[in-house]
């Protein structure tokens, strides 16, 4: 199954998902533009944009080995981290002016410790993300945002004014709204775009100059709104996962007849389902509140399970999902617990569930994934 489009936008997005430095980003770099890396969707992209730099979410696309990273990390560290750090050691992230981390998980926060010692990125910055979501934590996170803003200003020799922050908030909200529109198209009985292509679009949103991305996504949306839509699928599926940044993995599922129409992923809906309050008096306040209290939360936020569960259940209804595939990176403790709890709720709601533990690279796991998804789709059929 494949979306039929005439604009170049989708091809550009697919290319962005398949590469690290895509042509649009390369153009920006060639023009003297700076790029700031980040590892997690809690990173305040708006501040990076307000600094006149392009936010780029670090992936390990194209990596084939962890040979260099394994001198520092071990075989119980998640393979995304090992591959990403390996690419850092190989110099493939030398185009970054800086990288910002948060203490989002045990694996990624240690990449910071190793990266700052072993990869010569000019600016490395760590932020302390709260684990609770009350007003006190909004206050703490606001301070962390201000510290990060100060670090960027000092490093780049610039001033990030409130007006620049507001402008960046508008740009990023526009991305969020456009992506949400794209997702809403998938609620149709015949969605005009596959889950694999949707993932490519979402990835591209984290890898391209944002204004350019918004323009191209608007063009794509115009075309998709009138498109015929995909009919040759058996079931409508939802993916619930931490990092999944390879559309090929989704394609495996879709080639077997399961169309991915929704997700709760950090390269997915959790990135953009809600907006930042553009009208707030203090832009940093607005950003702090958005990341701590408004944005759909990651399992590392303590006490938010009921909201996370509701978020998924609402999507299941809105997108008429037939079954959920829960994906976990091997060695991820956060998602081991999260999926254990979520799966209980899904089973209680009589939603067919498939749990797959996966490695970062799709190669080598294709056979297993194909067999399990095939059996899962058959089991959904058997229930009807």
């Amino acid at each position, binding site marked *: 199954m494949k979306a039929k489009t005439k604009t170049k936008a989708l091809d550009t997005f697919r290319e962005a998902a398949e590469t690290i430095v895509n042509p649009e980003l390369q153009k920006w770099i060639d023009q003297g533009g700076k790029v700031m890396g980040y590892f997690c969707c809690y990173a305040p992209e708006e501040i990076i944009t307000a600094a006149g730099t392009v936010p780029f979410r670090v992936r390990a696309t194209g990596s084939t080995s962890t040979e260099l990273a394994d001198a520092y990390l*071990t075989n119980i560290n998640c393979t995304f981290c090992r591959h990403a750090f390996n690419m850092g050691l190989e110099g493939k992230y030398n185009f970054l002016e800086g990288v910002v981390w948060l203490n989002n998980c045990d694996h990624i926060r*240690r990449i910071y*410790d190793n990266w700052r010692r072993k990869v010569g990125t000019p600016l490395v910055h760590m932020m302390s993300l709260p684990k609770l979501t009350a007003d*006190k934590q909004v206050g703490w996170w606001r301070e962390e945002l201000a510290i990060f803003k100060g670090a960027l200003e000092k490093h780049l020799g610039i001033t990030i004014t409130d007006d620049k922050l507001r402008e960046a908030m508008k740009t990023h909200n526009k991305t969020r709204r456009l992506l949400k529109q794209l997702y809403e198209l998938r609620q149709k009985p015949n969605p005009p775009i596959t889950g694999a292509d949707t993932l490519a679009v979402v990835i591209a949103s984290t890898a391209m100059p944002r204004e350019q991305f918004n323009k191209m996504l608007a063009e794509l949306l115009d075309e998709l709104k009138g498109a015929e839509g995909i009919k040759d699928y058996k079931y409508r599926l939802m993916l619930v996962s931490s990092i999944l940044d390879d559309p090929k993995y989704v394609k495996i599922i879709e080639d077997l007849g399961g169309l991915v129409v929704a997700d709760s992923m950090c390269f997915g809906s959790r990135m953009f389902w809600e907006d930042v309050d553009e009208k707030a008096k203090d832009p940093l306040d607005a950003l702090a509140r958005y990341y701590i209290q408004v944005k759909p939360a990651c399992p590392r936020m303590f006490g938010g399970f009921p909201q996370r569960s509701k978020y998924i259940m609402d999507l299941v209804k809105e997108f008429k999902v037939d079954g959920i595939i829960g994906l976990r990176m091997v060695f991820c*403790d956060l998602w081991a*617990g999260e999926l*254990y709890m979520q799966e209980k709720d899904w089973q209680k709601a009589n939603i067919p569930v498939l749990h797959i533990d996966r490695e970062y690279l799709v190669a080598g796991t294709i056979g297993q994934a194909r067999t399990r998804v095939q059996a899962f789709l058959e089991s959904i059929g058997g229930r009807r």
Partner: protein
Amino acid sequence: MTTMTGRSMNDKCLRQLIEERDMLGMMVEAFTKTSTGVDLHYVPTKAFVDHHNELLRRYLSGEPFITSYFCCAPEIYTAMDLPWNTFLTPAFTGAIKPTFHDDIDASGKMFTGMDLCTIIRLAGYYVEEDMVPPPTAVIAMIHPCDGINVVHQVMAKNEKWSKIPVFGADPPYWEDERSYNYYADELKKMVEFLQKHTKISLDMKRLREVIKESNKQITLWQDYNELRRAVPCPHGGAMGLEFFGEAMTVHTGMPMGTAWMRDVVADAESLVRQKKGAVPKERIRLFWFDILSLGLTLELFPWLEQEWGAVVAMEMFGYSPYTQIDTSTEDSMFRGMAVRALHEVPMIRQARGVADLFLTDIERVVKDWKIDCVVYPGYMGHKDGSGSAGLMREKCREMGVPFLYIGMDLFDNRYTTLDQLKDKFSKFFTSMGLG
């Protein structure tokens, strides 16, 4: 017999606690019978038995007790006369439980994977299987690792436990004044929560007394560690763990614990004067840089001592970089407890924030305790520690001290068996020219 609260000693949730108490009780019996004088292990082990009995009594009578941890300001619990239980304990004492492997396997099936930290898996399993007495309230530990955060969320979702009020203090990532003040405020909120749900008030005068006593314990602990610098080292690694157990768990800020510590210090001092070591012919001084389980102290450490003359001269939980808490004002006490809880208690100190403390602790301990080799066990649950393994290795290389990374499960002795451990150590010692 069923009590007025409708609870009984036959309740399923008590079985494991009773079993553990009885096993520890047998060890206490053995200490008193075999020792020529007062066995130094007697008091800490007996303290655990008494603690278990008190938990049982409170459960049956309906009097308050809580679930909490050593890193959540236990001084406050002592001051409130509030015993606390942790559902992690059965993993540490699992070596004495006949069905321990069955529990591990069942917990692995429950969480769909054996790569999740064994302590976390077991803790979740015991709650889900109603093998832990439900407390009056839970002080959740949501740092230093992902697993501990997750298991408290699993606990809060459990049907029986979902009715129990939960409080988690939010841990900042840094070690600075801003973070300490933030966390001190979290501890004050914790006190409000405890007072509300246990109906016990915290008397600040009492808290001051407890902290003063705890400060004495910290001083004795540091005196003790000074004595462990001696060559030969007077005691092995198990005693350091027991010191931690007394100071930060069962006897925090209690004179009984302080008295025991004085005995241990006196014993160590006497041995140092006589130039007697824990190992008759000490050849290797080892720094075990991770947590310890009862299984290791009962099986591996005695073998290291007997076969290689290798003494654990320092270990993560015995190391005590603590500072005295200023008891002059309420704020200074809370600030001091925040510093202790965030920056000084073992494992939290190294694993919660940036990896630097793994490295500075290695540097300090290697120099001060005349360490011949550093062992990082690479416990399969400690993903953040393993993410620092390369940096630890480099630090050791820089200091010219051999470093061993094992890759093991500290609790499941089938993951890396005792024979495999012995083989690894033998090859390591031989190739490094130690022993």
